[in-house]
């Protein structure tokens, strides 16, 4: 299959080379998210940014999406909680995304309810210019929870789970913008998990942080994995090896290879993946 030494240049060619190559499929029962032949377009179907993507994301594990800039990692991530609905002309052109067995683009799915179950942490940490407390309580308040003790409890628990409690417990009412970048990103994680989602999507959560703050977030991801299914987009190969159980490599809108992280990095079956993870391009 991929025994030839000539390097494929066309993504479709690479993908077809890997299509039959799925040595470690995840049983349907264990998968939280099933991406089934999904193509996606930002311009009403004229051009597809994602092309016939199929893979299953396991529950209770960390799955990393890697690939060069512009290959559609963020787009795929934003399909999973339907954030792409914000773009008027966007459209899933083929296939289905099923979360816990339910097609999330079905007409009777409310994206609001979906997003309560599928939280998202963004590349640029974006706390509201409110107090730390109000940031964490935001998601609960918009669900109509007003009970003070319930909110207090949820805020404390979320901050603890996000490993931020000890640093901020004395200044819950001061502005979130006074925190350091790493703390702000952990606050955003606390805000996301406060509404108790099943899945947490993270889009390059450390790309704006220094190495020490990055290390803390990575530790945090390892802890959160016990409770949540995590899908993380990362630019950083080492990060993918450190935090993820499985890795999907994308190139030009296609899924080139998907496997256990260890296999992807130590023994990829597609030449292109090997070139990318070893830093020869991208």
């Amino acid at each position: 299959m991929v025994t030839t030494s000539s390097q494929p240049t066309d993504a479709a060619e690479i993908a077809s080379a890997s299509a039959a190559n799925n040595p470690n499929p995840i049983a349907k029962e264990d998968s939280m998210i099933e991406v089934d032949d999904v193509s996606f377009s930002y311009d009403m179907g004229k051009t597809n940014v994602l092309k016939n993507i199929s893979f299953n994301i396991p529950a209770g594990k960390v799955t990393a999406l890697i690939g060069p800039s512009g290959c559609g990692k963020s787009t795929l991530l934003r399909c999973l909680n339907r954030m792409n609905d914000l773009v008027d002309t966007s459209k899933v052109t083929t296939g289905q995304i099923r979360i816990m067995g339910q097609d999330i683009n079905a007409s009777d799915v409310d994206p609001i309810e979906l997003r309560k179950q599928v939280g998202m942490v963004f590349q640029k940490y974006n706390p509201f210019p409110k107090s730390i407390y109000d940031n964490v309580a935001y998601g609960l308040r918009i669900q109509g929870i007003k009970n003070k003790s319930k909110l207090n409890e949820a805020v404390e628990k979320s901050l603890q789970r996000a490993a931020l409690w000890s640093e901020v417990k004395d200044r819950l009412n001061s502005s979130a913008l006074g925190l350091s970048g790493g703390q702000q990103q952990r606050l955003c994680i606390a805000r996301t998990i406060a509404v108790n989602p099943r899945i947490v999507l993270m889009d390059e959560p450390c790309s704006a942080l220094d190495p020490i703050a990055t290390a803390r977030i990575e530790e945090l991801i390892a802890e959160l994995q016990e409770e949540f299914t995590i899908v993380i987009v990362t630019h950083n190969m080492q990060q993918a090896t450190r935090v993820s159980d499985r890795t999907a490599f994308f190139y030009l809108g296609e899924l080139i290879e998907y496997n256990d992280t260890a296999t992807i990095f130590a023994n990829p079956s597609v030449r292109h993946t090997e070139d990318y993870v070893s830093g020869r391009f991208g």
Partner: protein
Amino acid sequence: MNPFKSSSNAQKTKDRIVACVLAALTYVILACTLFIFFDIAKKGLPVLMPVFSEKGGEIFNSDFLTRMPETLVDYTDENGDKQSMASTDFIEFTKANPDAVIENKKTNAYSGGGIAGPLVGTALLVIVCMVVALIVGVAAAVYLNEYAKQGRFVGMIRLAIMNLAGVPSIVFGLFGFAFFCLFPLLPVFTDAPNIEKSLWAIPLFGGFLSFEGWGNSLIAGGLTLAVMVLPVIIAACEESLKAIPKGFREASLALGATKWQCIRTAVLPYATPGILTASVLGVTRVAGETAPIMFTAAVALKGKLPWEEASGNGIFWLSDLLTDSVQAMPYHIYTVAARIPRTDATSAMQDGSVFVFLLMVMSFASVSIYLRIHFRKKLKW
């Protein structure tokens, strides 16, 4: 040998000339502004604070701010000195001094008393205008910016709004007159419907809801001003909404907020400073307009303040207040400046009104600048 030596002297001279011309033009504008301001202050300040006049007097002439405009009487007394006073004062004076010598008695309309009526009227017009303009303007901006599908149609609406901002204010005045004053479908709560004008009158709350148009009224003037300032408010609101980082909206929606929850909790609160600043600037603009209120709201003379004059109770009182005409500063200045000859006696009202009005508009502008600086410091992201 200096490697950085200037190569062309001609270029340098040209550069210097351009800089001089630009500076000169800037200073000419500054000089004009300062001259106008000091001229107005020099003439107007003594009216408000007679200590600064040549004759001297009390520190603060509160009558000028608390009395209604009325006719001014001027005459020559037994010493040959010129005297002038408001007509009510003159009547009392002649009652108390029946033998006083009064020669060359002259009356000057609108030039006596104070400017309480126009000040209050302008404040009421501005309040009605801004309440309406802000509600409609914010709603329109939120719709255009957050809800509407960005396409040709919305582009056309934006273009139309922009063009509306360039329409001369007299056109708005005539529009307001036709639409708010004469249109007979506009209802009034009243005890006694105007039989001639009323299309029909429905008995309600012990009075009538009479469809007779609003006539020359506070509400007609306020709404006309609102229509005029709407394009400015909408544009400013849209600017403020666009300035809100996308991250706030995304974070909110990703936490399961509905669109309206997102706008209410993660967009509008942070757009408020911009909207506020813009609306104070809007206030400055509408407070100074004469043309839109000339046909729709303003009258030169009123005996009492609007709330003293309104009759009835509750909704009838409010209806009466809103459908009664008002005095207004710009119209008052137009009246005393353009329709009353300038003499030693009448100049006080003219100069004083202009001075107070200038202060009023300048304080609005300062509030707007203060708000902008204050919020910029407080809300940074």
